[in-house]
Structures are given as structure tokens and as C-alpha cells.
């Protein structure tokens, strides 16, 4: 069931934000609130799925020389179509999505996945990978958004948690807060991953041999 492996791969082992470190621009720019992280993540998930499907469909037709221009045009086309579709039929959502649209076109994770995966694998796996990466990207953004919103506004998803006594850390709303929060988050992930690796290694080696 390699498709399932591709799916889980994107959510934890190869998480786009914490492991592959791609898609940084949208991840840092809009995650000053959890709801923004969620919206950005889901919008990216949609475009990842749509372009993943299309790219893997025509992967044999495109010669490697011009694969990049072709992939990126497909992505840009899907994003523009989604933008106009939402503006016409769901204007309220479109208003919230406003700035995310151009940010999706330049989202490195999408072209990164097309280049690394969808362009080389059958449709089933490409969709699984796209879905996994989309989910991985979404929960990473929501976590980052929640932390920054909690420290910056004293609320999560808009619900006030810390009362007015809490001196809101304005830095968390600004670029500096985003960079430092994500840096510490990735460091934490590294620690978790290292411990887990050591734990499994000791389990196999009977605990005496160094890992």
C-alpha cells in the first residue's frame, strides 16, 4: 500500500514545513492567526491535489528540458481559475482568501512536489502524496498560527483565552515572531525525532550498544 505510505509521509516524516522546509513564504506571512493558517493550508491542499493530478497525468509527455515552465503554468492556471470561481460564486470566502491567492502561485512546496514526486509517479501515488503534503502543510500552519495568535493576541481561533491582563506580545504578530517561533518549533521537532530514533534503536539493540 505505497499510496498510504506516501500519504503519511507528507503528514509527519517528510512534513513540508518542519522537514523539507519549503513553502516558507506563505507559512510565515499569514500565520499570525490559526484561522489564517487553516485557510491557507486548505487552499494550498486544493491546488496541490489539482496540479498533482494533472501533472502526473501528462508526466510522460513533458520532456525533462522544459518540465519546470510547464508545471508552473499548470499551477498558475489552476490558482487563477480557483480565484475567479470563488470570486463569482462564493464572494465571502473569496474576500477572506484575497491575499492567499498570489501566495499560492509562489508556494515553493507545490512546484517542489511536482518536481520531486508528481512528475515521476503514477496518479494514485501522486494524489496520495499531494494529499499528505497538503494535510502536513495545513496542520503545521495551524499549529504555528495558534502559537503566534495565543502569544500575540491572547486568543486561539479568535476565542479570547487570556484576559485583558495579558500584555499581548506584539512581536508575535510581526515577521520576527514568525521566524523565531518556527525556528524553535523545528528544533523541538528535531529533538522529538532524535529521541524516537534512539528509543527504537535501543529497543532493537538490547539497549547496550550505542546507537
Amino acid at each position, binding site marked *: 500500500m505505497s499510496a498510504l505510505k506516501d500519504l503519511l509521509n507528507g503528514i509527519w516524516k517528510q512534513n513540508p514545513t518542519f522537514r523539507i*522546509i*519549503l*513553502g*516558507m*513564504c506563505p507559512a*510565515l*506571512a499569514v500565520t499570525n492567526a490559526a484561522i489564517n493558517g487553516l485557510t491557507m493550508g486548505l487552499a494550498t491542499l486544493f491546488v496541490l491535489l489539482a496540479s498533482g493530478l494533472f501533472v502526473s497525468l501528462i508526466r510522460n509527455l513533458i520532456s525533462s*528540458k*522544459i518540465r*519546470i*515552465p510547464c508545471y*508552473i*503554468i499548470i*499551477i*498558475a*492556471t489552476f*490558482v*487563477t481559475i480557483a480565484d*475567479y470561481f470563488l470570486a463569482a460564486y462564493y464572494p465571502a470566502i473569496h474576500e477572506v482568501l484575497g491575499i492567499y491567492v*498570489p*501566495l499560492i*502561485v*509562489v*508556494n*515553493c512546496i*507545490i*512546484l*517542489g512536489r511536482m*518536481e*520531486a514526486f508528481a512528475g515521476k509517479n503514477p496518479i494514485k501515488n501522486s494524489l496520495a502524496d499531494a494529499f499528505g503534503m497538503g494535510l502536513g502543510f495545513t496542520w503545521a500552519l495551524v499549529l504555528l498560527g495558534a502559537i503566534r495568535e495565543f502569544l500575540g493576541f491572547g486568543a486561539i481561533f479568535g476565542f479570547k483565552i487570556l484576559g485583558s491582563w495579558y500584555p499581548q506580545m506584539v*512581536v508575535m504578530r*510581526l*515577521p*520576527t*515572531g*514568525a*521566524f*523565531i517561533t*518556527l*525556528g*524553535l518549533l*523545528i*528544533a*523541538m521537532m*528535531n*529533538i522529538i525525532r*532524535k529521541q524516537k530514533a534512539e528509543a527504537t534503536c535501543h529497543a532493537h539493540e538490547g539497549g547496550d550498544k550505542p546507537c
Partner: protein
Amino acid sequence: MLNLFAIFFAAVVTENFVFYRFLGLCPFLAMSNKTRTAVGMGIAVTFVLIVSNSITWLLQYFVLDKFGLPFLQYASFILVIASLVQFIEMYMHKYQAALYKAFGIYLPLITTNCVVLGLVLLTILKGYNFLEALIFAIGTGAGYTLALVIMSGIRERLDLADVPEALKGVPLALIITGLLALAFGGFVGMIK
């Protein structure tokens, strides 16, 4: 003339694309560990910025606006940028083989480098004329290279320091970028 200098100075310092607008971060984090690759990436991106900004400016005002095709903006701009990146990829493969190998995936990723698309869209948004657009592109390229070089200088020194295991590499780079963003924040408002 002053206005042109103001645009250039804003693009380099006060509204630096990395520290102020959050753009171009993927290659920035990846390519800023060695000064040589940092300068190489800076120059490559600056070349793409200048040429693509000029072409997209002409494309917007003489094609898209004239024939009423606003929906083509993203697709056509991206086509211009992607082709230019493919061009520079071939050039570097031939003449700068070492740098080409050092860039790896990050060379094609200049296509999605938010700085490039961010710049061309911002140029149209601000309604710059051709000369202003050119200065804006050069300033942004210089600003991006400046950010890369500062970052690589710091990271090369930090390679010698004994950094905790978990912080090595990207986490530390992110924290440094955060502090640099704070420092660059001091310049905001210098340009009225």
C-alpha cells in the same frame, strides 16, 4: 531623481523583500550557508528580477491591458519567469558548473521564488513607469543579495561555534533571520 533613489533605497533597506515582505525565504534559508553560494544565488536572482520585470512590464501595459486579458496575468508572468530561469540554468550548467551543482533543486525553484513574482506583481500594483520598474528590480535584487550575504556571513561563523544539536541548520537560520528582521525593522519609516 530623488524618487528613483527613494525606490531603490526602500527596496534595499527599509522594505527589504526578505525581512519586511517575507518573500524569497525558501532559497534564502537554503542558500545562505556559504557566502559563495549566497552571492551566486543573489546575482542569479538579480538577473532574473531585472529581465523579467522589464518583460512583464511591457507585457502588462502593451498586451494584457490593451487586449483586456487581466486573467492572463499570473500565467503569462510565470511563463516569462520560468523561461528566464531555464535560460540561466543552462548558462550556469555550462559556465558555472560548481555553482550549478551547489544550487541543485534551488535553481529551478527560483521560478517560484516569491521575490520574483512578488516584485513583478508589486511593480504593476504601484503603477511604476518603466524606469522606476527597472530601479525597483535592481534595488530588490541588491536587497536580496545583501540579505543573503549578511546571513551567510553570520552562518559561516556560527558553523565554528558549538550550537546545540537540535538547533543546527535551519532552526538557527530562522532565529537569526528573525533577529535580522527586527534590526531591519528599525529602518521602517525612514522613507516618507
